[in-house]
C-alpha cells in the first residue's frame, strides 16, 4: 500500500521540479528573423512562438501566428500586446528606440548574428539552445550542419579538380522585371561561393544591370530567385522581360536554377545545406551523383 503512494509522490515531485526548471526559461517567444524562426522550430520550440515578423515564412505553419510587421519597423505596444517573455532577432531588428521601450517593459531582448558565416550559426544555435533549454539538441544540430557544409565543400573541391568553376549570376527579381544582381558581400554571393560557383558580378550589394551588361557577362549558370512567381513561371517571366539573356550560354545550355528568395534574408538557416547541395549539383553536372548523397 505504501509503495504506490511513494511512487506517486516521486512522480509529482519530478513533474514539479521540471516545471520549476522550465519556468525559468522564457515560455512566450516573439521572433523577428526568418532564419531564427526556422531554427527555433528545428529545436522544437515552435509551440512557444506567439508572434513572428514578416521575414519568418518557413515553415508555412508560422504564417498563422500574429505578425509583428517588418523586423526593422517593429512596434513596441504591438509586441507587448502578445505578452512575450523574450524577443529574439538579428542585429537588423529595430528601430532602436522601440527595442529600448520593449526592454523597459521587462521583456528579454536577445540579439543574434545574421552574418553569412558558419561561426555565426554555431553561436546562434548555442544561444537559442540555452534559451530553449535544448542545449544538446542545439549542439547536435550545429555539428550536423558543419558536417553537411564541410562535406559539401570537400566534394566541391573534388569536382573542381576535373572541372573549371562555372561563372554564375544570381538574379533576384519581381515577376521577372528588372532583376537585381547579387554582388560581393551579399548572402547570395556566399551561397554561390559555397556551392562552388564563381560569382561574375564584381559590384557590392544588389544592383540593377542593363540588358547588355547581362549579356556581356555570359554566365555559365543562372540562378534566379523570384519574389512573386514560382519556378517555371518565374523563369518564363525572366526570359520574356530580359531577351538579352536568351543569348547567354546558361540559357542555351538550359542551366537555370531556381532559388527560394527567403533563403537570402536574415542569416543562415537550417534549409541551407540542402539548397547548397542542389546548387552544387547544378554547377557540376558531371559530379551530380556525388552531391546527391
Amino acid at each position, binding site marked *: 500500500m505504501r509503495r504506490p503512494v511513494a511512487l506517486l509522490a516521486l512522480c509529482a515531485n519530478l513533474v514539479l521540479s521540471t516545471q520549476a526548471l522550465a519556468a525559468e526559461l522564457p515560455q512566450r517567444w516573439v521572433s523577428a528573423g526568418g532564419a531564427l524562426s526556422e531554427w527555433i522550430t528545428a529545436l522544437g520550440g515552435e509551440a512557444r512562438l506567439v508572434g513572428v515578423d514578416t521575414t519568418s515564412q518557413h515553415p508555412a505553419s508560422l504564417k498563422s501566428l500574429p505578425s509583428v510587421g*517588418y523586423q526593422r519597423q517593429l512596434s513596441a505596444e504591438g509586441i507587448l500586446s*502578445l505578452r512575450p517573455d523574450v524577443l529574439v532577432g538579428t542585429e537588423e531588428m529595430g*528601430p532602436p528606440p522601440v527595442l529600448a521601450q520593449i526592454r523597459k517593459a521587462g521583456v528579454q531582448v536577445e540579439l543574434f548574428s545574421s552574418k553569412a558565416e558558419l561561426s555565426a550559426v554555431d553561436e546562434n544555435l548555442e544561444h537559442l539552445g540555452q534559451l530553449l533549454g535544448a542545449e544538446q539538441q542545439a549542439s547536435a544540430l550545429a555539428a550536423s550542419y558543419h558536417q553537411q557544409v564541410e562535406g559539401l565543400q570537400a566534394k566541391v573541391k573534388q569536382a573542381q579538380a576535373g572541372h573549371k568553376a562555372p561563372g554564375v549570376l544570381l538574379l533576384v527579381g519581381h515577376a521577372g522585371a528588372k532583376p537585381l544582381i547579387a554582388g560581393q558581400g551579399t548572402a547570395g554571393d556566399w551561397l554561390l561561393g559555397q556551392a562552388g560557383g564563381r560569382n561574375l558580378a564584381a559590384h557590392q550589394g*544588389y544592383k540593377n544591370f542593363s540588358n547588355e551588361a547581362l549579356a556581356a557577362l555570359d554566365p555559365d549558370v543562372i540562378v534566379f530567385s523570384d519574389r512573386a512567381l514560382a519556378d517555371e513561371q518565374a523563369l518564363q517571366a525572366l526570359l520574356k522581360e530580359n531577351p538579352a539573356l536568351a543569348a547567354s550560354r546558361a540559357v542555351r545550355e538550359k542551366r537555370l536554377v531556381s532559388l527560394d528568395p527567403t533563403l537570402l534574408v536574415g542569416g543562415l538557416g537550417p534549409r541551407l545545406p540542402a539548397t547548397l547541395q542542389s546548387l552544387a549539383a547544378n554547377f557540376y553536372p558531371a559530379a551530380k551523383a556525388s552531391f546527391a548523397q
Partner: protein
Amino acid sequence: MKQRVQPRTLFICLSLLCLLAVWLSLALGPVSLPLFDTLRAGLRLLGLPIAADGLQQAEMILGQIRLPRTLLGLAVGAVLALSGVAMQGLFRNPLADPGLVGVAAGAAMGAAVAIVGGAWFGMPEAFAPYLLSFCAFVGGLGVTALVYRLGRRDGQTNVATMLLAGVAMTALGGAAVGLFSYLADDATLRTLTFWNLGSLNGASYERLWPLLLVAAGVAVWLPRRAKALNALLLGESEARHLGVDVERLKRELVFCTALGVGAAVAAAGLIGFIGLVVPHLVRLLAGPDHRVVLPASLLAGGVLMLFADLAARLLLAPAELPIGIVTAFIGAPFFLFLLIRGRS
C-alpha cells in the same frame, strides 16, 4: 457659397474633438488595458497619490509608450498644419503646402545622407537616430534658406521666383534621394523607404522635447501675425499700404515653416497631406480669416494626426502601418469630398 460655421462653434467642436482624440490615443492600443487601470495610471502620472499595486504595466504602457506618442502626434500635426497655413498665405494659393519651399525635399535628402552614409561609415547604434534627426533638420533648413536666397533680388523677395526655385530644389532633392537609394544596400533601402512614409512609432521624451519647444514657438508666433496674413491676402502692395512690413512677414513665414516642418520631419519622418488638407478644410468650414484659420488649423492638425495614428497602430496590430499612408488615405478622399460638396 454655403454658410460658414461660427468661429466659436468651431473652436468648441475642435477642442472637444481634441480631448476625445487625446483620450482615445491614451486609452487604445494593441495592448488592451482595463479602462479603470488606464484612468488610475493616468492620474498617477499626473502626480496624484494612487497606490501602484497592479499598475506597473499600465503605467509603463501609458507613460513610456502612449503619452510620448500622443504628444508627438499633437505637436507634429499642429506644426504641419500651421506651416501649411503659412505657406498658403505666403503664396496666396490654396494648393501650397510646406513642401513647396523645399523643406521636405531638403529633410529627405538629409535623412538619405544619414541613413546611407551612416551604413557606410558604421555609425554607433546609440548615435544613429540622433544623426538622422539632425541631418533631416539641417537639410530642411538649409534647402529652405537656399530657396529663400534664390527668391531675393534687390532687397525684395519675389514669391513666384521662390516658388519656382522651390520646385527646382525639390526635383534636385528627389534626384539626390534617388541616387542614395541606388547606392544603398537592401536593408538600408527599406529603412529609407519607411522613413519616407513617416511614423510616430518609438516616440521617446528625449527626442520629443526639441520638437515641443519648436512647436510651442511656432504656435505662439504665427497667430500673432494673423492680421498681417489677412492683409497679404489682398496682395503685396495692398498689404504694404495697410502698413504691413511685407518683407519681414515673408521672412518670418518661411523661417517658421522651415523650423517647424524641419523639426516635425526630424522627429517623425515625412508625413504628407496634413499641411495641405487641414488649412484647406478649416477655410472651407470657417472662411479665410487667419485669426480663426491659424488656431483652428493647429487644433485640427493635431486631431487628424492622432486619429490617423490610432488607425496606424490598430489596423494591423500587432504590426503597424506607416502613418504617412493613413494620412493620405484619410486626407485625400476627404479633401475630394469637400471640393465636390463646395462646388455643388
